[in-house]
C-alpha cells in the first residue's frame, strides 16, 4: 500500500451544521435572513467550509493563473505567455492580467472553480492535478489543431509563488 489513505466525508455531512462561525458576516454580506441561511443546502455549506480546512483567508491567499501556451490561428490577439488571473471566487483580476479577455478561450475554464471549492471542502490543494490544460471553444476548419490553448496553475496571490502542495495551509502529520 502506498500513499495516504483518504477519508471522504459523506456528501451532506454538514447538513446539521449551522455554520455558526460564518453565519453573521456572511448573512450581512449577502443580505441573507435567518430563514435564508437555514434553507442553505448541504452542498453550499460544503462550499463554504473550505475556510475550515485551508484557513479563513484561503480565498484571498491564492489565485488561479490561465496562461496561454499556444495560438496559431485565432485573431483575438492572445499570444503564448500572456496570462489571465482569477481570484478564488472566479473573478478576473484585470490589473494582473495581460491577455485579451476572449470569452471563447476563458469560458471553458469555469470547471476549474467547481473543483477548487470541492477540493477545498475536502482540505486539498484547491487546484486539480488532473485537469490543468484547456483550449478555446472555437474549433475552426483544422479540427482544432491551431486553436488557442492554455495551462492553468495556482499561485500565492502575494508572492506569486506557484503552489503545488497537496494540502497547503495544513501542517504535515
Amino acid at each position, binding site marked *: 500500500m502506498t500513499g495516504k489513505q483518504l477519508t471522504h466525508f459523506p456528501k451532506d455531512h454538514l447538513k446539521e451544521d449551522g455554520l455558526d462561525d460564518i453565519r453573521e458576516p456572511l448573512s450581512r454580506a449577502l443580505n441573507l435572513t435567518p430563514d435564508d441561511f437555514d434553507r442553505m443546502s448541504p*452542498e453550499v455549506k460544503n*462550499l463554504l467550509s473550505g475556510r475550515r480546512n485551508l484557513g479563513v483567508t484561503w480565498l484571498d491567499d491564492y489565485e488561479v493563473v490561465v496562461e496561454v501556451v499556444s495560438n496559431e490561428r485565432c*485573431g*483575438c*490577439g492572445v499570444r503564448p505567455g500572456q496570462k489571465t488571473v482569477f481570484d478564488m471566487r472566479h*473573478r478576473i483580476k484585470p490589473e494582473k492580467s495581460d491577455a485579451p*479577455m476572449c*470569452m*471563447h478561450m476563458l*469560458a471553458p475554464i469555469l470547471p476549474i472553480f467547481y473543483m477548487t471549492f470541492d477540493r477545498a471542502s475536502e482540505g486539498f490543494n484547491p487546484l486539480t492535478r488532473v485537469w490543468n490544460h484547456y483550449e478555446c471553444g472555437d474549433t475552426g476548419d483544422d479540427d482544432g489543431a491551431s486553436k488557442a490553448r492554455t495551462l492553468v496553475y495556482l499561485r500565492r496571490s502575494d508572492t506569486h509563488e506557484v503552489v503545488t502542495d497537496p494540502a497547503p495551509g495544513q501542517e504535515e502529520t
Partner: protein
Amino acid sequence: MPDNLDQRRAFRYPDWKDRYELVATVTSAIHCANFVEKDETYVFSLDGILDPDKSTANLCLGMLARLQPALLMAADRATLGAHPVSGGWQTFDCYDTGLDHGGMGKVCVRFSLRDRESGEVIEDAAAREGAS
C-alpha cells in the same frame, strides 16, 4: 460559401466591429457572493472580447461563461447583417442555481447593442443599413 474561414466569418457590414459593442446589463442579482449588482454591465466587442475597463460589474466567470454562446450567436448574426442581439435569446442567468435550488445566488442579464462612440442603444442595426 467561401472556403476561407475568415471570409465566412466576416461581418456583412465590416464597420460594425468598430462601431458597436455588446452590453450585458444586470437585471437582477440576489445573494450574489461575488457582489454583482443590478444595473451593472459587462461590455464585449462583437467578436467576444470582454472590455474590463468599460465593464462595471465584478468579472465573475460564473456569469461570463454563460454568455459565451450569446457572443457566438451575435457574431454569427453579424455575418448575415442581422441585428447582433437575438430577439429570442436576449436574457441569460449565471451558473449559480440560487438559494432555493441548491446554490447560493442568482444573477440575470439582458443583452443590448450600443454605439461605442455615442453610447446610444441601437435597437436594430440592420435597419440602419437599409437591410430587411
